[in-house]
């Protein structure tokens, strides 16, 4: 087994014991990238040069020498950050996002920038302006999205861990499709400074890893107050590795009925229910509950996220950075022709967002969506007065084939189980809980109260141990012939 197949905690031990050097580690990952990247296409930019020069300077910290991949909507100083858009195709940011600074301070090595749906809008990574990414479990299938490149990089052993962003499920859905762990922390746990904004009240930077222990390790490095992000929480985060314990006794878990009664793949339902039974056998108390506000969640999400996007994306005007149409006769023509470079999906959301915020429509759409959001949040908070966690499938289906879902709106329906956590700001994690008959991974989602990531980690870690599901690594086009 190549070093590229190890978890971060295993690699930390090897580095600490001086059994491998950071250079050997990087070489192993780069060699694997060389072998699989042509088929997977997880990266827009591979930063071999920067990675090598960082290692030469000598690295120290909790993540010394660990190669981490970063979604290409997170700002990296001196490294192209494109958001998979023609608008930012040549943009080289003059600053690092706070998460990048934190990773570097702990000695991590940024190995490259991952493909995504343009400006994180989409659910399959087919909506990148450059090329689609493929699912390493079976390359006929999509890796999910929008952080599909980051999920694929970790699943294919092209990085030890990765950063993504999650506005409506963009970390948990691809993690589920690729059979790895994906965490969307509480809104405010991780600084968003340097994340290209899509919908500011929903966006959160998230973590991809091979197992739950790695999630806890990365969470320790990434969380914390940042004066550069006024929405980051002023709070002392615990050591999340303290929650890596096999203990479910007395844990009260609610299963919201609405998450299991919608139109979904029966194999996914079966797989998740089986995992839930195992949680019960291990001592957790399981009860079915109602979450009636869930039926409005996707509609509310659509309105709020598009409204915020229409405002956030106004900054791409050709003035300070990004593409500028060069033969404009006046400033308005420059704006309009420069912004023409957005892809159709981005334009659709800007138009819809502008519409719902326009005079006379605001009360009908935006205000109602906010009301639905508030009611859902209160309903969820009430459930957490009685239960420690909520559990559901991460997605209604497993991965679909490239090109199989043509309509982006139809594709967005896959977010039905994930958007509630963004609307209410709570943390949620997806971990693999099995495979379907095509051998494609199924993810189970665990949600907890605000800033209770530790509790999520404890439950996810326990379940991971019970299920004994281990990362099978990259299997390429012939995945379905291998047993996961």
């Amino acid at each position, binding site marked *: 087994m190549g070093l590229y197949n190890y978890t971060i905690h295993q690699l930390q031990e090897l580095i600490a014991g001086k059994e491998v050097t950071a250079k050997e580690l990087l070489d192993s990952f780069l060699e694997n990238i060389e072998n699989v990247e042509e088929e997977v296409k997880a990266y827009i930019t591979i930063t071999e040069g920067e990675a090598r020069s960082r290692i030469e300077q000598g690295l120290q910290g909790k993540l010394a020498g660990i190669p981490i991949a970063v979604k290409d909507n997170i700002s990296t100083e001196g490294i192209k950050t494109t958001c998979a858009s023609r608008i930012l195709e040549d943009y080289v940011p003059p600053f690092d996002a706070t998460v990048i600074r934190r990773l570097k301070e702990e000695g991590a090595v940024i190995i490259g920038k991952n493909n995504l749906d343009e400006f994180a809008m989409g659910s399959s990574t087919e909506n990148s302006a450059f090329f689609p990414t493929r699912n390493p479990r079976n390359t006929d299938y999509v890796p999910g999205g929008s952080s599909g490149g980051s999920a694929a990089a970790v699943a294919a052993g092209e990085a030890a861990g990765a950063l993504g962003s999650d506005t409506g499920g963009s970390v948990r859905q691809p993690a589920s499709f690729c059979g790895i762990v994906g965490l969307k922390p509480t809104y405010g746990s991780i600084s968003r400074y340097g994340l290209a904004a899509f919908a500011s009240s929903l966006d959160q930077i998230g973590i991809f890893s091979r197992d739950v222990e790695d999630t806890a390790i990365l969470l320790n490095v990434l969380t914390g107050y940042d004066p550069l992000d006024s929405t980051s929480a002023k709070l002392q985060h615990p050591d999340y590795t303290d929650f890596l314990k096999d203990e479910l006794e007395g844990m009260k878990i609610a299963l919201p009925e609405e998450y299991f009664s919608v139109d979904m793949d029966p194999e996914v339902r079966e797989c998740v229910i089986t995992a839930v039974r195992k949680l019960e056998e291990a001592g957790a108390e399981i009860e079915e509950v109602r979450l009636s506000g869930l039926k409005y969640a996707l509609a509310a999400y659509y309105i709020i996220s598009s409204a915020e996007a229409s405002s956030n994306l106004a900054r791409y005007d050709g003035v300070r950075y990004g593409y500028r149409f060069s033969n404009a006769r006046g400033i*308005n023509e420059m704006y309009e022709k420069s912004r023409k470079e957005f892809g159709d999906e981005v*334009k659709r959301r800007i138009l819809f967002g502008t519409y719902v915020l326009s005079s006379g429509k605001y009360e009908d759409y935006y205000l109602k969506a906010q009301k639905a959001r508030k009611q859902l*949040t209160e309903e969820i908070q009430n459930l957490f007065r009685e239960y420690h966690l909520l559990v559901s499938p991460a997605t209604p289906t497993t991965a679909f084939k490239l090109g199989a879902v043509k309509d982006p709106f139809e594709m967005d329906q896959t977010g039905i189980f994930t958007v509630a956590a963004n609307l209410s700001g709570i943390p949620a994690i997806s971990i693999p809980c099995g495979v379907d008959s095509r051998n494609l991974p199924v993810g189970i989602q665990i949600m907890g109260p605000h800033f209770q990531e530790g509790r999520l980690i404890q439950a996810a870690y326990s379940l991971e141990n019970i299920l004994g599901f281990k990362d099978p690594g990259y299997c390429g086009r012939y995945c379905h012939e291998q047993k996961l």
Partner: protein
Amino acid sequence: MSMINNKDIEYIAGLARLDIGERDIQLFTRKLNTILEYVKILDEIEKDESLLSASLFPAGNVFREDELKPSMDSEKALSSAAEREGKFFRVPGVMGE
């Protein structure tokens, strides 16, 4: 909640400073109507002003002291500009279009 037509799309595109071209006007009219059809489910929710003053997040408004602090060097900030003049971003004429 109503449906929208090509004229509405042209108007919204103007507000968003987005050149969508003749070809795409119909495409986006159709696409937006699909979403509007879907979000009709929110018709069930009563419309009132109760939310205008309510904050969704526990943190509420975050204030800071208005102190002078160093910020990004102007050369750095200008480094990605399509056109500049001295310490300024240069743009096409704003007046007299």
